């Protein structure tokens, strides 16, 4: 079996061979191909820049892998901030002895994801280290600003809340692959390109946008609530979630609103635009399940109208998830 050795990150001949054969050939573009110390790019200001390091176990999961995740993760941050992702850096930290075939698979899916978003990978780095078992990838993205969608002061009373896809799928898919739980029915991660989901919207009518990654929809809305004087009122019956994800969450006692997604954005839009917005989002491949799930209210809290009729507070756990039902 061909494996990763320290030579590809050492800076010597092995590195050159790796960069040329695996990186440049694959991600080829006129900036990268020059292999400068620093790539020269041109971009109109203002720009958005975002970085993220990815480490996930297992690195391959239904619906994606760490390569795809590392492209979409960073590009989605740019997209939900109101930008169009254009360039990406790509840095690999690989375990010594890592299976070469797996590495190629990751690089292939990285390439595919970058093409889907339309970003060019223009710089990067590779290191090989001991002490890890799966790759770590860092990406930094740069994008052109369309309109700032991360300005809390744009959120106004009566705005509608849209969730772009069914929730908790990424988290559940990872747990299932990790656990070998003998659970019937495959659940795929929702890992996808969010720019494609929201690009058709009239950004002037969107007050705010954020992707609901770690901590889920609950974390996003609570975070916003802590920054503004308003809060949110959600309707449980409207929240998109697939049946098997819902069943799984019930059985393990987790709240799907608090679980991570990789392809779900929370949008806050003008109330009279909400219906149009949902229809536009639903036209995209990963936005077919979009729903208007609630609205901005005067109460500085996130409330959920439950299916049994009460109005529950949606909070975020302080530390680890501790049960509290007596």
């Amino acid at each position: 079996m061909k494996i990763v050795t320290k030579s590809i990150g050492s800076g010597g001949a092995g590195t050159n061979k790796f960069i040329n054969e695996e990186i440049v050939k694959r991600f080829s573009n006129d900036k990268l191909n020059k292999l400068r110390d620093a790539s020269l790019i041109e971009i109109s200001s203002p720009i958005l820049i975002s970085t993220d390091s990815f480490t996930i176990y297992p690195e391959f999961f239904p619906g994606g892998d760490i390569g795809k995740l590392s492209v979409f993760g960073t590009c989605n941050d740019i997209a939900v901030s109101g930008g169009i992702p254009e360039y990406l850096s790509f840095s690999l930290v690989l375990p010594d002895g890592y299976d070469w075939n797996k590495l190629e698979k990751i690089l292939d899916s990285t390439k595919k994801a970058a093409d889907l978003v339309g970003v060019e990978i223009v710089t990067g780095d590779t290191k090989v280290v001991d002490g890890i078992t799966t790759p770590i990838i860092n990406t930094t993205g740069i994008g052109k600003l369309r309109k700032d969608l991360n300005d809390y002061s744009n959120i106004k009373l009566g705005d509608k809340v849209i969730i772009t896809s069914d929730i908790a799928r990424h988290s559940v898919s990872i747990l299932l692959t990790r656990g070998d739980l003998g659970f019937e029915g495959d659940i795929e991660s929702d890992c996808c390109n969010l720019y494609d989901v929201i690009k058709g919207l009239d950004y002037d009518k969107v007050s705010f946008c954020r992707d609901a990654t770690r901590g889920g929809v609950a974390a996003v809305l609570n975070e916003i609530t802590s920054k503004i004087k308003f809060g949110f009122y959600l309707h449980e019956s409207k929240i998109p979630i697939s049946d098997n994800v819902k069943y799984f969450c019930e059985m393990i006692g987790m709240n799907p609103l608090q679980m991570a997604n990789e392809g779900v954005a929370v949008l806050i839009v003008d109330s009279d635009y909400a219906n149009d917005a949902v229809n536009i989002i639903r036209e995209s491949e990963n936005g077919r399940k979009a729903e208007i799930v609630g609205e901005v209210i005067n109460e500085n809290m996130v409330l959920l109208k439950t299916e049994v009729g009460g109005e529950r507070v949606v909070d975020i756990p302080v530390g680890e998830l501790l049960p509290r039902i007596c």
Partner: protein
Amino acid sequence: MKTFLVKVQGVVQGVGFRPFIYNLAKKLNLPGEVKNTSSGVEITVNTKNKKEVAKFIEIIKTDAPLLSHIVDIQCKEIEFKHFDEFKIIKSESKNDITFVSPDAALCKKCENELFNPNDRRYLYPFINCINCGPRYSIVKEIPYDRENTTMSIFKMCKECEEEYNSVVNRRFHAQPNCCSICGPNVYTKNNKGFDAIKEVAKVVNDGGIIALKGLGGYHLICDATNDEAIKKLRIHKKREYKPFAVMIKDLNILTDKYKLKLSNTEKLIITSPQSPILIVNWPNHPLSEYVNPLNNRLGIMITYTPLHKLLLNFINTDFIVATSGNLRDEPIAIDEESAEKTLQFVDLFLHHNRPIHNRVDDSVATVINNQIYILRRARGFAPYPIMLKKSLNKVVLGVGTHLKNTISLGVKNYIFPSQYVGDLDNIKSIKFFEETIDKIQKLFKSKADLIITDLHPDYYTSKYASKINKPQISLQHHVAHFFSVMAENGIEDNCIGIIFDGLGLGCDKKIWGGEVFTFCNGILERYTHIDYSLQIGNASSKKPFLMTISYLKKYNLLNENTLLLKKIYNIDDNEISFINSLLDKKLNCIETSSMGRLFEAVGSLLSGVKENEFEGHTAIILESIAEQSNDMEDHYKISIDDTIKLKNLIRGVIEDLKKGTQKEIIARKFHNSIANMILNICIKIRDEKNLTNVALSGGVFQNIILTKKTVNLLNNAGFKVALHQKLPPNDGGISAGQVYYYYLKTNKKLDGKFEKFW
């Protein structure tokens, strides 16, 4: 002639105590004076000798007004002072605590007037006097004067005012005094007063549901013998199983008409001024089975307001359902607007225009060991204080827990536990919680210096406390349970605490709930606990069958019993193996020593019920099954070494099930096993540490069969058992325990690592 100073301590203000003393002194011809003071009432009186004053005090003790609560009377001779006659003088108290009486049920005298055609308050639904009527529910501020109550919007007519000002009148200083001319009245959208009451009564008679504004909130009312009406109510309240309380006109209905045997204690409680919902055992009762689909127990209260009395007078049936006027999980409605908004399904509303300031639910009680045992503490009991022997050095606020919340304010020698607040998942309950904190501090004119919370960081109470810029202590949940039962029994040291409960965060970041504490010469220790098993997050609390599987797995009984599980729970191999692997991978799992989970698991195993509709649902099922068999001594062995091992118990239950032993017997044996296990642990501790006091608390001790059996065994073995009587054993008692912990910590020696300072 000598002069004596008599100090009466307790709840003696706003209950007609001074006029009582005045009239008594007049009758005995004793000159002197009486006034309100910081902690009660002070009487200065001239008598011939010591014997005469002793007789005076004796009468005070025996004849004190119905709603007073004397804690202590002290008497000493002082320098002679001359008095011409006996007088009530103005109190000079400044920063002192004044008590507020709880709401009280209609008294006999007022009831007679209510139905006397010659009385000026004939059929007037707000008749009251110094011995009865609204108190806490209408008080906004102290002193308890009319202008500080919601009655301030009604100006007394001349006749009422005369009664109010006459020392010899039963309505002297009765703050809510009123009549049909000057006071509040009832109305529906069509009718007013008496006609309105007749109109809603007809709706009930015709099988409809009404919402009636009562004393501390709205009631939902329907005919308790009408299946269809109750089924409809269950649909709207989204409650399939949780028992509804019922109301009757008077005690005779039960004892004479239906020949239900009640103990004297039960009779005393159900007819007391507190008039709680009393849980009674009534096999083959004449009510609809939908009132309580779970077992033979009925929660019965007697009409405690004139309005309810009048209503029942026009209702054909002897029993009405009178359940709290709320939607599931919300606090009861207290004003017209919110009632109309949330209870849209009712056929007719009966409102009135006397505002409710403090929302108070009906209290729930039963009898254990011939004494009252409170399960929900609200109307009639709040805000009675728990007295402390010494003063607190700070104003301390215990914010309680997340579910079944109450709060408690500790001021000077008192802990004031609030009424039942509810579950803090719901925004309306959260508002009620915050409102109660504001109101109780205002009421006792004391601002908290220190807040005591539970260790659990995700309880709303903890989140609330973190927003408040005040020093805080976080106290372990079950230690607070232990201290709550010690507080009301006045125990300050040397006690065993058996705390069996559903869930609380432990100091080791595991979930606790089957705890044995020792408190010995000031040192508090977790002596032992139920051996940890895995619980799957909140799922195991909602789905007790997950816990059944967890126990079987832990004790290597799962593989050989999958067939049994499949049969009982109607589940397939896939589901079992899925749950099995969740437990294997410890996915969202946490270790728990909960006793509540064990009761639920066994209840679910015996009944096949997989999910709890409400807290403790399958545990209640288990108790109901046990109730079908007679008391006996049989039990499963539970071994105790460093922890309490459940293996033999679980195996015993399973084997009996497979042998085809009657479920009633298994359930009874299970209860006995826990009681015997408690006894054995207590004996072991007595041998080691010489402790003979045992305090029982925690939600599991809402189980009457278990509590009775345990008390019996312990008493027979020579232990002294401290039980709850003022506070509930469930989480409603926690806030008072939090304050009491601080009291003992600062006033006595108390070592132990059960708290966290911020």
